[in-house]
């Protein structure tokens, strides 16, 4: 394979130049920040690399205004450290995909987090990444620099382009600078742990907890599993000022007592539990395909029920609204790196099953981790081109064409085919 051509701009002007050049030559550009999520979305067509790592650094942080602006490739670690010093946070609790793909933690960048709309456990109560982006500057696939949104927390001026950028995976524009809404970090936290609940009982417990005025900030359930050693554990996190957390904790334990006996754990253990959800240490990696399944939260337990026969380890976050499922790979017959037909067929079959389960419950599924060879053998579309919402698909294609008429940005990465 020929060596990939590489641009490494260090200013917005150089990004503009690189994109304009690509537009003029009708050549594709693969946009890469920290690369922590790259295996998740590799552009299918040949492209030069646009290495954004030098477009980094916090450019404005005003804790009193609850606003932070940083260049796109600023590492999340740097942003969280700066926020931490002022006891603030990105409330959507983004997680780091790097370790899932065998990379060291800490490579995720703000731009990547926004491009993937990556949100963690607090998404349940505080919204997703898309709910916290206020504004941006970018270079669109037309080779033009544009801005959207603003730098204040309340703004309805014009179309909400910041939300459109969130989750667009770099297919519409190359993000240069991003302004985020930030929030005070809770001064205290505890997690109530309930042991030994079935998936359905845990689902009911989480629903009941969220129907109480306890302001549960995150709710997760780790079922017992043959493949792993853990015993079923359900966690409900309470955060805020100490006296409030104490009062809500007592009230919640009392109200949920008929459904299960909970134990409140101190901040340190609570933190460890949710860090586990953030890095997904709790699901097996080696030899497993990782699927992400998003469904209406009260139906989460049904995903487990429908998957149960496959002996697939899975965990629930977002009170059941998010299921991470680790599907065991069948070992290649010859023990080599090549994918044999049986392996590919097996992966395809379970993939089709997971998509069907997600759809039947009103949700959707995405393959997050798979060996490259196996991933390449799986169809990227969630369903056949003739199914799905054709109207929605056409809108996606026209939107892509409006921002990137020549298909320069992350070529071959087609979000429309996932509908």
């Amino acid at each position, binding site marked *: 394979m020929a060596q990939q051509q590489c641009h490494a701009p260090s200013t917005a002007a150089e990004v503009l130049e690189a994109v304009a050049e690509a537009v003029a030559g009708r050549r594709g550009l693969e946009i890469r920040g920290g690369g922590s999520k790259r295996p998740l979305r590799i552009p299918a067509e040949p492209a030069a690399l646009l290495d954004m790592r030098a477009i980094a650094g916090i450019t404005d942080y*005003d*804790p*009193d205004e*609850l606003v932070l602006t940083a260049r796109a490739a600023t590492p999340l670690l740097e942003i969280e450290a700066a926020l931490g010093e002022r006891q603030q946070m990105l409330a959507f609790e983004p997680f780091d995909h790097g370790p899932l793909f065998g990379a060291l933690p800490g490579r995720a960048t703000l731009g990547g987090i926004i491009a993937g*709309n990556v949100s963690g456990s607090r*998404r*349940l109560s505080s*919204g997703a990444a*898309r709910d916290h982006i206020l504004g941006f500057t970018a270079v*669109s696939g037309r080779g033009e*620099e*544009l*801005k*959207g949104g*603003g*730098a*204040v*927390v*309340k703004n*309805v*001026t*014009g*179309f*909400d*382009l910041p*939300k*459109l950028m*969130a989750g*667009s995976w770099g297919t*519409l524009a190359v993000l240069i600078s991003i302004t985020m809404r930030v*929030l*005070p970090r809770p*001064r205290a936290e505890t997690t109530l742990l309930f042991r030994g609940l079935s998936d359905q009982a845990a689902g009911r417990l989480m629903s009941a907890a*969220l*129907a109480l*005025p306890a302001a549960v900030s995150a709710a997760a359930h780790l079922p017992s599993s043959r493949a792993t050693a853990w015993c079923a554990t359900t966690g409900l996190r309470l955060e*805020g000022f*100490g*006296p*409030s957390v*104490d*009062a809500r904790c007592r009230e919640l334990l009392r109200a949920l007592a008929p459904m299960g006996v909970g134990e409140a754990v101190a901040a340190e253990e609570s933190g460890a539990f949710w860090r586990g959800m953030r890095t997904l240490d709790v699901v097996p990696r080696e030899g497993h395909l990782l699927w992400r399944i*998003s*469904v209406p*939260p*009260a139906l989460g337990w049904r995903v487990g029920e429908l998957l149960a026969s496959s002996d697939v380890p899975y965990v629930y976050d*977002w009170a059941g*609204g998010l299921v991470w499922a680790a599907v065991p790979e069948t070992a290649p017959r010859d023990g080599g790196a090549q994918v044999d037909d049986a392996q590919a067929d097996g992966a395809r079959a379970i993939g089709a099953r997971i998509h069907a389960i997600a759809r039947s419950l*009103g*949700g959707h599924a*995405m393959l997050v981790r798979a060996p490259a060879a196996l991933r390449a053998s799986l169809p990227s579309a969630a369903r056949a081109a003739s199914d799905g*919402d054709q*109207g*929605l698909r056409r*809108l996606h294609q*026209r*939107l892509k064409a*409006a921002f990137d008429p020549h298909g320069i940005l992350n070529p071959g990465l087609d*979000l429309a085919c996932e*509908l």
Partner: protein
Amino acid sequence: MSVRMPAPDPRTLASRARIVAAMRDIVPGEGVIDQFDELAPYESDALTAYAQRPLLVVLPENTAQISAILCWCNEHGVRVVPRGAGTSLSGGALPAQDGIVLGLSRLRRILEIDYDNRIAVVQPGVTNLAVSQAVAARGFYYAPDPSSQIACTIGGNVAENSGGVHCLKYGMTSHNVLGLKVVLMSGEVIELGGKAFDAPGYDLLGLAVGSEGLLGVVSEVTLRLLVKPQAAQAVLLGFAEVESAARCVAEVIAHGIIPAGMEMMDRPAIHAAEDFLGVGYPRDVDALLIVEVDGPQQECSHLMTMVTEIAVRNGASTVRVSGSEDERLRFWAGRKAAFPAIGRISPDYYCIDGTIPRRRLPEMLTRMSGMAARHGLRVANVFHAGDGNLHPLILYDANVPGELERAEAFAADILRTCVAMGGVLTGEHGVGVEKRDLMGEMFNDVDLAHQERIKCVFDPAMLLNPGKVFPNLHRCAELGRMHVHQGMLPFPDIPRF
């Protein structure tokens, strides 16, 4: 009316009878209004300075009818202006002379309440308050609470991405909508989002919320329900100087407190409210803050202690914590009646909506006094202090020749200053026709062209809510070709209507 709208199409005006007949075929019975007198209530929204009688009004009853109406209008090139309750403060529902008004008031059913998933699915004509009322018995509510919530509809809230006094803590409409059914101008019906927390593909849901009726007509909305906090408590804080009040607000945030509401009023607004209702606001202060906290009683007490300490440290001359629910509501009554209170002391007033970084508030008020003198008009200020959203109320008399124009010029000066200070043209009322021609203050031609191309994706013939949001109406074909070199459009002087 001093705002230029797209020129009416004479062919459409001439074929009115045919359009009426086509609409009657789609919506039988009382659903088509074509009598000149009966069209009067639809000629403006809450921005009454702008009025235009529409060609006719159609009031569909379901998604299928909306789809048939839009499909017919699209095929025949007829403009359509969607309308909820008509409470827009930016002229978002201002009719087109050659267009139909598509009123959604008859779609007012709550279709589903799903407590397990904490959502409600409602039709667009359901009022904001009706949602909260429907779920109150189970201890839930719908958080965004624009001041017009008795009348304004969820469809309108979605179009405008409405806020309210509690949105600092609980978010705007966009943070509280999980799904939409949208009818496109072509008549196609699409579903965006749903009951799950996210959906594949581009965030068209995020794009649709706040699109001011330019992209599609919403026919169903999936809303997120929240559990009502156990208690709420408010404190009245009076300050001799605006600077001290602003410092107090910043310090509350710096201490990690996000109050449920944090409102500020300036001296003219305080006096008007006190003269009107006599709720007990101090008259000898330049700034009044109402800070509300909510949650369990222990949280309220804890936060109230922190807030009052911060206020005293910043020189508050009045500190009154609500001792009962009655008293809390009384504190709010004055603020909520600020608009009618101003209406009592002035024949007309013009409510402005812009956002600035909060720390610039004292400077903004000083500059506003200067502008008031220059334009020869009075101004009173209410202010969502927590998020920097200003609502200056300009007092004028429409019967005095030139006063409306002076009020508009004053408003434009305020909004330009907002942008110059690092803020934005509108925090929650929308651009509509009101701020349309100021969009260039915030966005350059390239920025706007990217937004307008989105309009073209959804409505290539530009028939839906024409003349709103964008200052220059480019044709979609032209936008496709338009290339900008060094920030210069080709032929920048050509009018683009």
